[in-house]
């Protein structure tokens, strides 16, 4: 046998040994992880049981009969009467008194939340297509856009509606 083949043979053995070693390490690692998982699961089970125990104890100590007894001896709560319920805003408003003559005007602040729906556009009776508003009312449009920039969205139109209704 040549030294070359001997080296090759030793190489095979070495490769085998390394593979076996790697396999063993992996195997041990897998086992370690698995036992860790089992331990964690046992811990989970123990904690779940403890939770069950405490929860049950709490519910037993706070059962309906016990609560009733405490209520009778210590608290004396009774069922609410009709006067203690409000069904809606209308009922709440009915408790208020009407405005007396000469009372100061209530302060009203208008605001709108979210996006307002698109304003319907002026349509040409001939073509059926929307007309460019600047062609119809160039001055008003310029005014409006200026106001919007200065005052914030939608404040002015709503204020105008309130003003007109009063």
């Amino acid at each position: 046998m040549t030294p070359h083949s001997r080296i090759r043979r030793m190489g095979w053995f070495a490769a085998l040994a390394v593979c076996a070693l790697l396999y063993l390490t992996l195997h041990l690692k897998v086992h370690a992880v698995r036992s860790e998982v089992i331990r964690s699961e046992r811990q989970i089970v123990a904690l779940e049981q403890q939770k069950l125990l405490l929860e049950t104890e709490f519910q037993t100590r706070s059962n309906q009969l016990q609560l009733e007894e405490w209520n009778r001896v210590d608290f004396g709560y009774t069922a609410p009467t009709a006067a203690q319920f409000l069904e809606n805003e209308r009922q709440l408003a009915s408790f208020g008194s009407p405005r007396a003559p000469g009372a100061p005007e209530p302060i009203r602040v208008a605001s709108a939340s979210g996006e307002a729906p698109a304003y319907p556009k002026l349509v040409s009776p001939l073509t059926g297509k929307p007309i460019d508003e600047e062609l119809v009312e160039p001055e008003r449009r310029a005014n409006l856009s200026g106001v919007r920039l200065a005052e914030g969205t939608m404040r002015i139109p709503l204020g105008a509606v309130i003003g007109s209704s009063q």
Partner: protein
Amino acid sequence: MNSFAVQVQVPTGRIRLADVRRRALLVAQLRVLLIGAMFAALAAGALLRIAYLGLVQPAPAERSMAQALLPSRGEITDRNGLPLARAFPAYALWYNPGAMDDGGPPLVRSPKEVAAALKAIFPDVDEFALARQLASGKAGYLRRRVLPEDANKVYAIGELALELPRETDRHYPQGTMAAHVLGYVDEDGLGHVGMEAALDDRLRDPARRGEPVALSIDARVQGALEDELKRGMLAVDAVGAAGIVLDVDTGEVLALASLPEFDPNKMDAEGQKYVFNKVTNQVYELGSTFKPLTVAAAIDAGTVTDLSHRYSARPFPIGGFTISDSHDLGASLNVPEILIHSSNVGTAHVVDELGAARLKQVMADLGMNERPYIELPARGFPIWASGDWPRLRAMTVGYGHGIAVTPLHLASAYAAMVNGGIWRPATLQRVEPGQANRGRRVFRASTSARMNQLLRMIAVYGTGRNANAPGFRVGGKTGSAEKPGSGGYNKSSLVSTFAAAFPMDRPRYVVIAMLDEPKAVAASSFQRTAAWNTAPIVGRLVPRIGPLLGVLPDETRDIDLSDLQPLVGDDGSEG
């Protein structure tokens, strides 16, 4: 070895050399084959191991956790998920004489000393019996259930033979509440009496017991019902009480109570005496509470079309028997007055016009001729006369005598009368919205609407005034029936019932309260009748449960009685 031989033979010549080379090649090939085979074997081994892990051996860790967390018996909860019965890891006290394992006596100290130490922890044990058991050297339970703090004290005694194994036990956190609905579990793990018996297979099935079973019971309503019934029962010194709260649209039982109760956590001979369920198993002649059903049948059949029609209220002789009222109600009564004053004679005349066959048919449609529909195993069979009913029988049935049914029958019948006319079986399992039983139509919707008015009138003007909780629009009928004894009816022992529904402008719940043999005491103004003992129970109960069930009190709202009010005068006079 081989290499040495080859080296020796090398110088011997060409032929030899060729031979050696061939052999060396052969050896090398053989070794390669051997190593290859080893690798193949290893690979095959690994593959087989993988296959074994994957196929044969079930995943051990996962199974252990799922099993450990799976209760030994399924949990029962109320409709809102509050546990009413659960498997609970508890301690037991077990005597294991072999624990010392040294050939000597099982206990370090004498049995008497150990028994005395145990007596100090558990004051209720019989010390001498315990000492005898410890001395006998036989393994066995010393105690079935031990509290954790007591378990620590037992450990502190320091006897190895006293073992405290953890055992899963059935525990009812709410104590005696809803005992008749739940039942109990015996030492062999079998359910008895209530839903523990009815759902026994479901609760023990390993595939399904991990999921809790939701009942239709609402623990808060059940607690309030039991509390008010018990208070009412003790106030008038009754021997028993029963009550039920039923959803009229689905047939769900929200509360069901039978008093005196038993403790499912501690079943003994004392508890066994009370396992009988008065709501589903005991049949009673429920008396005047049947009158609205009779009137509803007559309105439905078209024999009562005019509620102002007046019927004679004079004693009514028929078949050697005279039907009379408890007190004089004048010469004649109209239909609302018959109900408000609870007149037997008036009802008898209504039945006479209706006809026995039609009344029997309506009663059968209301389920009065069979056991009540509910999951509980104990259901009483009504006392129901078969064949054609003679006139007298029909008349007595019309005011609730000569027929005996369970309070549950009455609750289902009232639900059908107020909900628009549909009879549905009662159930103790939670019904998902829209899944209610379709039921069968017994009364027309118009009849039901009329009966809602009449029931409300009884609570406003008549015998049910004590149940008229402000703002809840309660309507209902009293019933006080004498109990049959040896040789006829017993004048002084009554069954008082109040059958109610609320709110009458859109009825949602039926409430039945019943007292068995109430006494005439100061708390009931020295009266035995339902108006003075069971009606106040309902009057106190409804304000407690109404807001919990989504019925808010409202003084501004009521069912319209304006068309019937003139028929009964301004205040309906005496009740």
